[in-house]
């Protein structure tokens, strides 16, 4: 059959961010998928090196509006790793509360959008209606609906008022109740079953092979979660469990997210009950030279930050890896063979976040043209590695050369 290219984007009613998909179709079946990114690139990593350590928390917050706590969280963990400071207990609990609130509203947002993608706007309205009370809680606790600016290297920027907790408890109970309703309504709906079961299956092998993260990998039955694998904040002090689901299809991903909302609500409630008193900031005085890494579990998976400092007032290198960067390539495994209408849903199922992902682009100043996207750069680096291998022969030879260079120092 003749192959046709169906372009999707960069501005498309289905996509709230600008990105461009090239669907190669035979009839209605998608046989290949390609994408162009870079519409969201703002040069965050470079910007971060222009700012001081403290200012950078605000920059990384604006990597993405939905993971607006996960990025600063990973960043401050990296900075704390670099300077080796211990965060006070109260700050740890406050951080957990904010991170989990973010997870709740992000997952509700996804459930709504997924409903919208399959043309089931009732779910869209429900999901977003029940998301509003969560944003109210965020506004009450932090002062803003999104972009909370709570994280700070060494602690948190402002304290929570213990008197608010009674009200938050009440609101959380409402959130749990409405989520349970949503779980029942979504997971028992025959229409949704028909549209999501067996669609976009990501097998266990592929999930591991592509290195997918977060709910995407947990929906393939693999309990991978940074909150338990390398506990930070107060996650190892409260009682909760990692949600997994077998199947790897869109339905499993929806189920994982919906059930995670309830777990997160449980964490928030426990953190408020166990909230210790004390200082909220470790007051970091000076930054030693060195490297630090930090990773945190964002709603979409593990976000990873790396910083290197030379003892000065700002980072000399800051590297960010967002979860969508690992999840998006799995489209190759999940989309091919499905119809166009399903592909929109499958791509949405990993909850891709392009603002997070677009870390790298090469732009020619004179013509304002993008000459190299992230993917091409990746290819460049691969080629360079291959060339090096050719030049040095077998890997052992490379190792020997490295050792020689090191011994010369």
């Amino acid at each position, binding site marked *: 059959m003749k192959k046709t290219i169906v372009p999707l984007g960069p*501005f498309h009613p289905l996509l709230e961010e600008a990105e461009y998909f090239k669907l190669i179709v035979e009839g209605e079946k998608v046989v290949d998928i390609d994408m162009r990114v870079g519409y969201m690139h*703002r*040069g965050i990593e470079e910007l971060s090196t222009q700012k001081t350590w403290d200012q950078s928390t605000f920059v990384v917050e*604006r990597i*993405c509006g939905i993971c607006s706590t996960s990025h600063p969280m990973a960043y401050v963990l990296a900075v704390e790793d670099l300077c080796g400071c211990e965060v006070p207990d109260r700050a740890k609990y406050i951080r957990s509360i904010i991170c989990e609130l973010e997870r709740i509203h992000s997952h509700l947002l996804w459930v709504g959008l997924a409903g919208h993608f399959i043309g089931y706007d009732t779910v869209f309205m429900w999901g977003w209606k029940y998301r*509003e009370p969560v944003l109210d809680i965020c506004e009450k606790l932090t002062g803003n609906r999104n972009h909370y600016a709570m994280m700070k290297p060494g602690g948190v920027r402002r304290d929570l008022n213990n008197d608010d907790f009674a009200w938050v408890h009440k609101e959380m109970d409402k959130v749990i109740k409405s989520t349970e309703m949503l779980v029942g309504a979504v997971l028992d709906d025959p229409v949704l079953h028909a549209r999501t079961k067996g669609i976009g299956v990501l097998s266990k092998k592929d999930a591991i092979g592509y290195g997918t993260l977060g709910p995407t990998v947990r929906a393939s039955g693999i309990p991978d979660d940074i909150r338990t694998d390398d506990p930070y904040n107060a996650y190892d002090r409260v009682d909760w469990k990692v949600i997994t689901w077998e199947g790897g299809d869109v339905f499993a991903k929806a189920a994982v997210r919906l059930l995670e909302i309830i777990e997160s609500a449980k964490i928030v409630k426990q953190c408020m009950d166990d909230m210790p008193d004390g200082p909220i900031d470790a007051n970091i005085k000076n930054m030693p030279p060195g490297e630090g890494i930090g990773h945190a579990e964002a709603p979409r998976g593990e976000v990873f930050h790396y910083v290197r400092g030379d003892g000065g007032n700002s980072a000399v290198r800051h590297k960010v890896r967002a979860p969508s960067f690992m999840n998006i390539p799995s489209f190759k495994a999940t989309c091919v063979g499905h119809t166009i209408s399903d592909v929109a849903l499958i791509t949405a199922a990993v909850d891709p976040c392009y603002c997070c992902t677009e870390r790298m682009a090469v*732009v020619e100043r004179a013509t304002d043209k993008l000459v190299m996207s992230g993917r091409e750069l990746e290819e460049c680096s691969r080629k360079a590695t291959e060339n090096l291998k050719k030049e040095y022969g077998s890997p052992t030879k490379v190792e020997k050369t490295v050792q020689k260079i090191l011994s010369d120092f």
Partner: protein
Amino acid sequence: MSLTRWALKKSPWVYHVALSPCNNCDIEILDLLTPRFDVERFGIKLVGSPRHADALLVSGSVNRHVLPRFIELYKQTAKPCVVFGIGSCALSMTMFRDSYNTVGPLDKVVKEIDPNAIIAYVPGCPPKPEAMILGVVKALQTL
């Protein structure tokens, strides 16, 4: 007041354009449609094509890659139209001012394409949905 401008005032249909924002303004724009704010009761509707739109809701500090697409998109929009810069990024580029990849702010870009463009701003990072509704209403009143 010309007839076309008068016609703009009632039930504006809006098209959402993301020009390298952080996503948050976009989410808040979508939030306008949902039960709590429900702007559709005022006749404000999010449409799928710029050709149907009376107003563009633009978020983000314009970057190099997205600029040519935006120029094309602006030319496709039926005139007269109102361009709303949603969020501080569109207004002043905030912290992205120093970035190597941004060419904004929005008004500079739009004025270059069309010197007579009508531009309105809603500041905030992100602006609350209430603020966006107020901004749209105020801008339409001044038409």
